């Protein structure tokens, strides 16, 4: 039986699909460090920097808009909290955004792992359930981003990468040994009650 143009096209599509499925070899882990060890920081003059900045297009995405909006709200909420808090009340802040929403606080966590294919937040907020909170890759920031809605209190958490590697938050201010030789990060969402860490 002769091949028809339709069947040839089907063959070509299948071959293209198989090319997409080819598994690439992993480069040695030391590669990035080797490159960085070879190069020196660049120095541009002020005018060169200004010219380059003006030439750099600024992209606007819904996520970036959301992040910007969340940051503005967080600053506003923080300012309000500073103005209205009771004397002696303790406010703990870290490198995250917090937006007050009734009794729940939305906390946005970031992780710089561009090599990861999947990242989840796991922790005491759901009793260390196997099913974590999925983070999404923010291309604009080059970061993984995840949001948690939590009541005031303190929580332990960690990031699960590619469903196997578990690490503490590299940006966390506080960490605690989990008793098995690993560190969990501490997240404190305060309205002054400073509840116990849920473990």
């Amino acid at each position, binding site marked *: 039986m002769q091949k028809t143009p339709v069947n040839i096209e089907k063959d070509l599509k299948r071959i*293209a699909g198989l090319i997409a499925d080819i598994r690439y070899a992993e480069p040695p882990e030391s590669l990035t460090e080797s490159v960085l060890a070879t190069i020196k920081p660049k120095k*541009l003059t002020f005018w060169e920097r200004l010219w380059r900045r003006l030439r*750099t297009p600024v992209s606007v995405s819904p996520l970036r808009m959301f992040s910007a909006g969340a940051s503005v709200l967080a600053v506003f909420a923080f300012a309000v909290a500073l103005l209205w808090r009771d004397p002696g009340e303790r406010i703990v802040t870290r490198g995250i955004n917090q937006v007050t929403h009734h009794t729940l606080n939305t906390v946005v966590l970031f992780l710089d792992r561009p090599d990861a294919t999947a990242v989840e937040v796991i922790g005491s907020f759901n009793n260390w359930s196997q099913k974590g909170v999925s983070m999404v890759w923010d291309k604009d920031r080059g970061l993984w981003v995840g949001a948690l809605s939590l009541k005031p209190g303190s929580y332990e958490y960690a990031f699960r990468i590619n469903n196997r590697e578990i690490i503490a938050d590299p940006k966390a201010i506080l960490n605690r040994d989990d008793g098995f030789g690993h560190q969990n990060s501490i997240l404190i969402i305060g309205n002054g009650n400073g509840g116990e860490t849920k473990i």
Partner: protein
Amino acid sequence: MASGEETLVYEILSGDVNSYALLVKRYQKPIYNLMMRMTGSEQDALDLTQETFVRAYEKLEKFNPSAPFFPWLYTMGLNLARDFLRKEKGSPIESCEPDNSFSIEIDQDDGLAEQIDVQEVLKGLQTLPVDYREALLLRFHEGLSVSEVAYALGLSLSAAKMRIHRGLLKLRQLFEKQ
């Protein structure tokens, strides 16, 4: 250009070396595998990959941040690999065949597509001229647009389209002969 890379390039040019680490991590795998295909040696591939990223860093001032970064990097890597093969190995670089050199037989039974697998496609790719092989991998493995493939390989848009289509036909022809 992948979103966010304009900012990274700006930060790198402003002296932030760590931002370059993100670009290295993002693209080290395809560049390393390009070098593996070109040299067949892990050590040479590692050296050339490192050299590609260092060379790209040194020339970053000449890079237009609104253009795609990866095809620019790929071009640099491919040129370095070709220079390496010419100087170090004395290997001739395959040139592409004329456009009228290719024809396919269409007397096979149906079912060819179901008989082949990834490993066979990988072996088949290694038998193709560099331009055909890399055009196919850039288009279907890296997901570049045809215009980005053209940019990376220094081809016109129509020539890139031709390489991709004829590359697929060449692979199919290889499997027909088996």
